[in-house]
């Protein structure tokens, strides 16, 4: 696998080796940090998903109760108030405020519901009959909507966290599977290149010394040869002289130096 990630285009020098080593170290630290962040977020995320699951179930129940309270209204009023309600809606009484919460550097929104006092579009609905049921149903629905708002906060947090975790995980994976192996590869490459250079250097030195030997040997031979001719000349001269040297005699030969 590491073969596929390639290496960085650097010259295999000792300086870049140092650079790469510090980069590797940095990447490892970063990886550890991001991994921890991702774990923290994932923990939170799992917590949220669990709560979403619960809240959704709860919502099912709450909405059912609320729908039932509306059934009570239509029982008491004895008719349909839907249209009237739709038409008399003017100002939202029930509003939300968005707050933000910081989780490992991620801003999560949190909706908070509040009611705008003094706005009451339906105060007189069901004046003739059913007004009490209408009021009760309003309260039930207001509680239901609070649950919905809570759920909406969770859900938004879910969407954002999901996104953030994906990004973080992508980074973690990138570091783990691309950057680190790549840097390691580069280091290996540099080291092997440097070794190669070392070996070449050694070989070269060997070659040089070999050549030096040869050269000295040749030079010695030459000198020897020169000496030999000189000796012959001397011998001829000696032959001319009656006194021939006693080769086997005490007289020592000249040392041959190689």
């Amino acid at each position: 696998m590491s073969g596929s990630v390639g290496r960085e285009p650097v010259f295999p020098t000792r300086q870049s080796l140092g650079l790469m080593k510090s980069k590797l170290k940095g990447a490892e630290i970063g990886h550890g940090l991001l991994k921890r962040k991702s774990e923290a977020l994932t923990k939170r995320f799992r917590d949220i998903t669990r709560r979403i699951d619960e809240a959704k179930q709860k919502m099912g129940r709450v909405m059912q109760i609320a729908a039932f309270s509306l059934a009570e209204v239509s029982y008491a009023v004895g008719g349909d108030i839907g249209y009237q309600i739709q038409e008399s809606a003017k100002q939202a009484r029930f509003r939300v405020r968005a707050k933000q919460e910081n989780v490992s550097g991620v801003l999560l929104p949190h909706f908070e519901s509040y009611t705008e006092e003094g706005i009451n579009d339906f105060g007189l609905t069901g004046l003739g009959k059913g007004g009490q049921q209408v009021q009760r149903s309003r309260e039930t629905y207001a509680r239901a909507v609070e649950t919905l708002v809570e759920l909406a906060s969770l859900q938004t947090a879910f969407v954002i966290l999901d996104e953030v975790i994906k990004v973080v995980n992508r980074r973690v994976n990138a570091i783990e599977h691309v950057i680190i192996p790549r840097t390691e590869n580069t280091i290996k490459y540099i080291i092997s290149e440097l070794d190669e250079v070392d070996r070449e250097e050694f070989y070269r030195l060997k070659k040089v010394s070999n050549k030096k030997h040869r050269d000295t040997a040749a030079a010695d031979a030459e000198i020897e040869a020169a000496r030999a001719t000189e000796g012959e000349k001397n011998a001829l001269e000696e032959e001319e002289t009656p006194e021939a040297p006693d080769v086997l005699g005490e007289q020592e030969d000249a040392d041959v130096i190689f």
Partner: protein
Amino acid sequence: MAASAKDRQFLAVIGDEDSVTGLLLAGVGHVTDPPDSQRNFLVVDSKTETSTIEKAFENFTQERKDIAIVLINQHVAERIRHSVDSFADPFPAVLEIPSKDHPYDPEKDSVLKRVRRLFGE
């Protein structure tokens, strides 16, 4: 994101008559000032065109910047499932709610589907 979240203070509703009536009773209804008088709710019945729902959904999720949460009946969401599923922005939060005649089915919820998928179920 931070700035836009602050201005969002309303809830929007797309649903059948009963759900809308109930939620309006809770006080979520809001009509913007004239002349354009936009309502933040839409009543859907069997006669409502899917394109109308689609348009309202677009309006609530993309055009209007004052809506924090869009509540939509699950059976209505089914009709525009594609739009709901492909809407992934954090704001506004789209929430599928059960209606009187259609009890809540977690299998269809686009968010819960994501939850389930993440846990590999």
